[in-house]
């Protein structure tokens, strides 16, 4: 394994978007927690599909369809290997949100009843709250939330107490898209399994940024999005343990997910196709395969090491800015490459607009985590999130931009 540091300037050359100028300035992209950019290799893989072997999958007996099916299933194998799962345990969805909804609806409707407990945390993205609220309303199940403390860490005693109430299902984020907290999901899985709960991991902010092994974590389901991992928009992944997927009803009905249909009913297809109704976004799945190849060529250990270094530098540089409030844990081992902050009384929207003028893209808002922000006592935060093409100079530019904002706001 290559352990040398990766060079973001070299990596940047693979990403056509960095040729772009924003108001005449080079693009500094710091909104990777929302979506990443795509390397040439991914864009090429998609183009290659449409130009050379565009066809529907699992249908035709002709050459093009055979090639398309092979490439599609090959991408599944790449995804499976990437997180150490079996091919039949990988279901392609539109995004992580759909993957979480799939579990909530298929598993939840079948297994939850009045009074059953669903355990979430207060740091979840809306996509890991709202589906459960819908299912709770439908089934009469109740939802508990594990709180987090001032450092942005889950409160241990509360976690243990809520687990002792015997939830049927625990759904928890691996890495917070606002606080940057990395939760010890392995420990939670062990404890949850002891009380007989199923565990879902929202890995949207972890799979793209660090080695993730579903067998090591031991979770029952895990969801992530391709577009947050250099892949195209429109593809998400659900990992589910084979035995669980087998027992579950389909989420959506239609073509491809059946083996036989009569007017009186239907028989479900094998795993994982039982959960892939209708024509998939084939080119994008193949593009996701290319994204995984790209990440593998760098090595996820190196991706993580680069981000730890960068996050450490960002926390240090940002702390130097007067009147800044940085959220989330300070311990770099327990933090992903997301830094949320507020600067004095400057609204995050104003900060983002001023930084935009410098070609710097950051996120400002509630980050689809309103309960979390309510708890922090703010309506919005600014957020910078990093990836493999970001360098320390990007962070210097961010800090410079914050000083410009201070000048404009006469601070």
């Amino acid at each position, binding site marked *: 394994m290559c352990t040398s540091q990766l060079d973001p300037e070299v990596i940047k050359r693979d990403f056509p978007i960095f040729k772009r100028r924003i108001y005449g300035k080079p693009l500094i992209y710091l909104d990777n927690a929302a979506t990443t950019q795509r390397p040439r290799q991914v864009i090429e893989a998609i183009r290659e599909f449409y130009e050379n072997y565009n066809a529907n999958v699992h249908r035709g007996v002709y050459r093009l369809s055979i090639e398309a099916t092979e490439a599609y299933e090959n991408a599944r194998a790449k995804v499976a290997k990437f997180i150490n799962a079996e091919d039949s345990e990988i279901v392609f969805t539109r995004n992580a949100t759909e993957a979480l909804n799939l579990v909530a609806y298929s598993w939840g409707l079948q297994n939850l009843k009045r009074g059953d407990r669903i355990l979430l945390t207060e740091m979840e993205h809306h996509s890991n709250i709202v589906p459960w609220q819908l299912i709770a309303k439908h089934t009469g199940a109740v939802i508990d939330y594990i709180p987090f403390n001032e450092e942005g860490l889950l409160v241990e005693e509360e976690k243990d107490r809520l687990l002792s109430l015997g939830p049927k299902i625990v759904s928890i984020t691996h890495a917070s898209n606002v606080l940057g907290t990395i939760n010890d999901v392995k420990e939670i899985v062990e404890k949850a399994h002891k009380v007989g709960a199923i565990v879902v991991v929202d890995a949207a902010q972890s799979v793209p940024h660090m080695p993730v092994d579903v067998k090591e974590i031991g979770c029952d389901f895990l969801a992530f999005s391709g577009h947050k991992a250099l892949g195209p928009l429109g593809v998400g992944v659900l990992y589910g343990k084979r035995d669980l997927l087998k027992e579950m009803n389909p989420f959506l009905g239609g073509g491809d997910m059946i083996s036989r249909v009569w007017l009186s009913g239907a028989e479900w297809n094998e795993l994982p196709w039982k959960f892939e109704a209708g024509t998939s976004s084939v080119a994008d799945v193949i593009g996701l395969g290319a994204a995984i190849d790209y990440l593998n060529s760098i090595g996820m250990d190196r991706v993580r090491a680069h981000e730890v270094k960068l996050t450490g530098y960002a926390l240090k540089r940002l702390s130097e800015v007067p009147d800044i409030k940085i959220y989330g844990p300070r311990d770099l081992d327990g933090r992903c490459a997301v830094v949320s902050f507020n600067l004095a009384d*400057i609204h995050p929207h*104003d900060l983002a*607009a001023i930084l935009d003028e410098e070609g710097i893209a950051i996120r400002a808002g*509630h980050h689809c985590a309103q309960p979390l922000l309510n708890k922090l006592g703010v*309506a919005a935060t600014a957020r910078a999130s990093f990836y493999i093409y970001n360098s320390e100079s990007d962070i210097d530019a961010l800090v410079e931009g914050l000083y410009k904002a201070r000048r404009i706001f006469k601070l």
Partner: protein
Amino acid sequence: MTSEFYREKIIEHYRNPRNYGSIEDAQIKVQEANPLCGDDIELYIKLDEEKRVEDIKFRGRGCALSIASASLMTEHLKGKSIDYLLSFTKKDLLDTLCIKTLGLNPVRIKCALLPYKALKIGVHNHLGKEISEEDLLEYEAEEETA
């Protein structure tokens, strides 16, 4: 450029918003929010016997642009007739803010127009006039006026 939004006047009104607060006996009370950024505004208008704006106040949280917009708008509307409030256009508001380059950043224009949307909804409700979905969209859209 965005800097146009951040002239001294805007920053000054953000820091010292005029007419900030609430009016207990206002005839028009309206709350509006921008779900995108979580900004919200409450607008209070007290009319005198001749249906002129005797007092107008707002409170809420938002970016410099939305707070300054509310501050300047309330300043401008004090003493005006309800007919004027009804005919008050987006262009009038943006003129008050001295913003010319509309359409450059539609997201930011929405911020500036949040108080305007609150005003229009409040006045229409008070007069028992219906607002169509189209009008509602129109209140926060960029285009034309520039």
